[in-house]
C-alpha cells in the first residue's frame, strides 16, 4: 500500500503554466492590465477589478517575511519527516503574498521583515514547488 502524501498540489489547466515555470526555476504570478495590480494565486480574472485582462509575469523572487511559525508537530505524510520546519507567509516585491516554507534558516534566526529570495523544491519528477530562503547576510 502506497502511503498517501499530502504535499502535492492539484495542477489545473488554469495554473499549469505556473507549475511548468516552477520546474524551470521561474516564479510566475499574474498581473491585471486594467488596474495594474498583481495577484496570486493565478486566477482567470483580476480579484481587484474583475477584468479578464490578466497576464503572466515572471516575479523577481525577492520577498520579505510577513509572518511565520516553526512547525514541531504535523502527522501528515510527508510533513512529519520534515519537522521542525518554518511555515511562512512572504510578501513578494510585486505585492502579493504567498504561503510557503522558509528553508535554509535556523528557526531562532527567523525575523519578520527579513529579506528572502525564492528557491525551489522538487517533490516529484513532475512537481516542483517554490520555497524561500534568506538572502545571504540578511539575518538580523
Amino acid at each position: 500500500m502506497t502511503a498517501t502524501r499530502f504535499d502535492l498540489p492539484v495542477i489545473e489547466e488554469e495554473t499549469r503554466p505556473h507549475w511548468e515555470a516552477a520546474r524551470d526555476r521561474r516564479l510566475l504570478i499574474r498581473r491585471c492590465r486594467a488596474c495594474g495590480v498583481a495577484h496570486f494565486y493565478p486566477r482567470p480574472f483580476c480579484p481587484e477589478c474583475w477584468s479578464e485582462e490578466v497576464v503572466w509575469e515572471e516575479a523577481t523572487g525577492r520577498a520579505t517575511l510577513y509572518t511565520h511559525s516553526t512547525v514541531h508537530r504535523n502527522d501528515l505524510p510527508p510533513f512529519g519527516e520534515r519537522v521542525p520546519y518554518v511555515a511562512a507567509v512572504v510578501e513578494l516585491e510585486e505585492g502579493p503574498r504567498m504561503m510557503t516554507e522558509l528553508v535554509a534558516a535556523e528557526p531562532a534566526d527567523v525575523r519578520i521583515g527579513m529579506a528572502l529570495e525564492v528557491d525551489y523544491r522538487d517533490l516529484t519528477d513532475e512537481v516542483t514547488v517554490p520555497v524561500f530562503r534568506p538572502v545571504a547576510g540578511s539575518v538580523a
Partner: protein
Amino acid sequence: MAWNRVAVVGAGLIPFGELFDQGYEQMAAGAFRAAVGSVDHGFDPALVDAAFVATQRGTLWGQEGIGGNTVPTAIGLAGVACTRIENACPSGSDAFRVGCMAVASGVHDVVLVIGVEKMRDKSSEEGLLARAAGGHPVYTRGESAPVLFAPFATRHMHEFGTTREMLAAVAVKNHHNGTLDPYAHFRNEVTVDDVLAAPPVCHPLGLLDCCPQTDGAAAVLLVSADRAQDFTDRPVYVAGFGTATDHPYLHEKADFVGLPATTLAAGRAYEMAGVGPAELDMAEVHDCFTITEILDVEDLGFCDKGKGGVLALEGETAIDGRLPVNPSGGLLAKGHPIGATGVAQLTECWWQLREQAEDRQVALRHGFALQHNVGGRGSGVAVVNVLTTNR
C-alpha cells in the same frame, strides 16, 4: 431595540470528553433529552416541527453522507422536518441562526437545534488532521489547524508586544473555569509555567495553547417569543445575530492581527440587537487556541486592537472580571466537538442569563450575553449570536 422575535425555552448538553462508549445517535439523544428536561413548564417532544442538525465532519465517525435524516429517528421524531447545517467551526452557531430565522419567519413553531460531533473515533491520519489538511487544492498544503493560527500569534507579538505569558493566561483562566463546569472535557488547573513548558506544536503555540479533540452533543429549543411564557417564566430571547466570511487562504488575509469575519459578523449582530460590547454581561467565544481568544476579544470590540493579550493577564475576562469570557472553560478546557460547540456555548449563555451556572455564575448587569465561533479554512467564516433576558 433588540430583535427579540424568538425565545430559547430549553437547552442542554451531555458531558463532553472522549466518549468511546457512546455512538453519534446516543449522544444526540442525550443532548435532546437534556434540553427537553430543562423546560420549566414541561415539554412534549412531539411539539418539535423542525430540527436543524449541526455536524461538521460525519467522516470522523464513518458516515460520509450523514444527512438531516440521521437524528430524528435517534430522538424519537422520525417524520419531522430536519436539515443538516455544515458551516465549519461555526456549524452549531449557524444552525442556531438558521433555526431562529425558521421560527421568526412563521414557517415553523417549535424548532430543535442540535449539534453532535464524534471527533475521537478515528486516528489522526484518518481523522480531523488529514481531512483538514488540504487547504487550497493548488497552493497551500499541509496546514493543520495550529498552522492556521500560529502565524497570527507571531504577527500579533511582533506588532503589539503580546507575550507567551499573555497567551498562557488565556489557557490558565479557561482551565480554571473548566474545573467549575461539570460538562468540561478537562477539569484540571494549569499554571503559566505548565503552559510555557508544554511541548511545542507550532511556535509560539504549545500543547496547552491548543484545544483538545472532544466528542459531544448539545441542543436548544426555540419558539416564537410570543409563546415563550407557555414554556417558562424565565425565557431568554434572541436579541440578534450575524455571520460573515473572509478569505480562506492565509496569503490573502488583510493582516495577521485580526479575523475580519468576526468583526463583520459582530457588527451585524450588534446592529440587529441594538447593543454593543458595553452591554454584555458575559461571552462565550471561539478559543480553539489561546491566540484565537485574544484576537476574538479585540475583533468583538471588548478592547482596542492589540490589547487583547492584557485582558486575561489582568483578570478582566475572569468570571469575576469586567467582562467574563468563556466561563464554561471554553474550547480549551470544555472541548471542541465541532458541530456541538456553538450549541453548547449558547447553552452556557442561557444558563448564565437564567442564573443557573452555579459556581461559575457571572454577575448580571445588563442582561445580554454573546456567543461566537470563527473557523473553517483560514478562519473564513464567523457567526455571532446575542441572547438577552430583556423583552
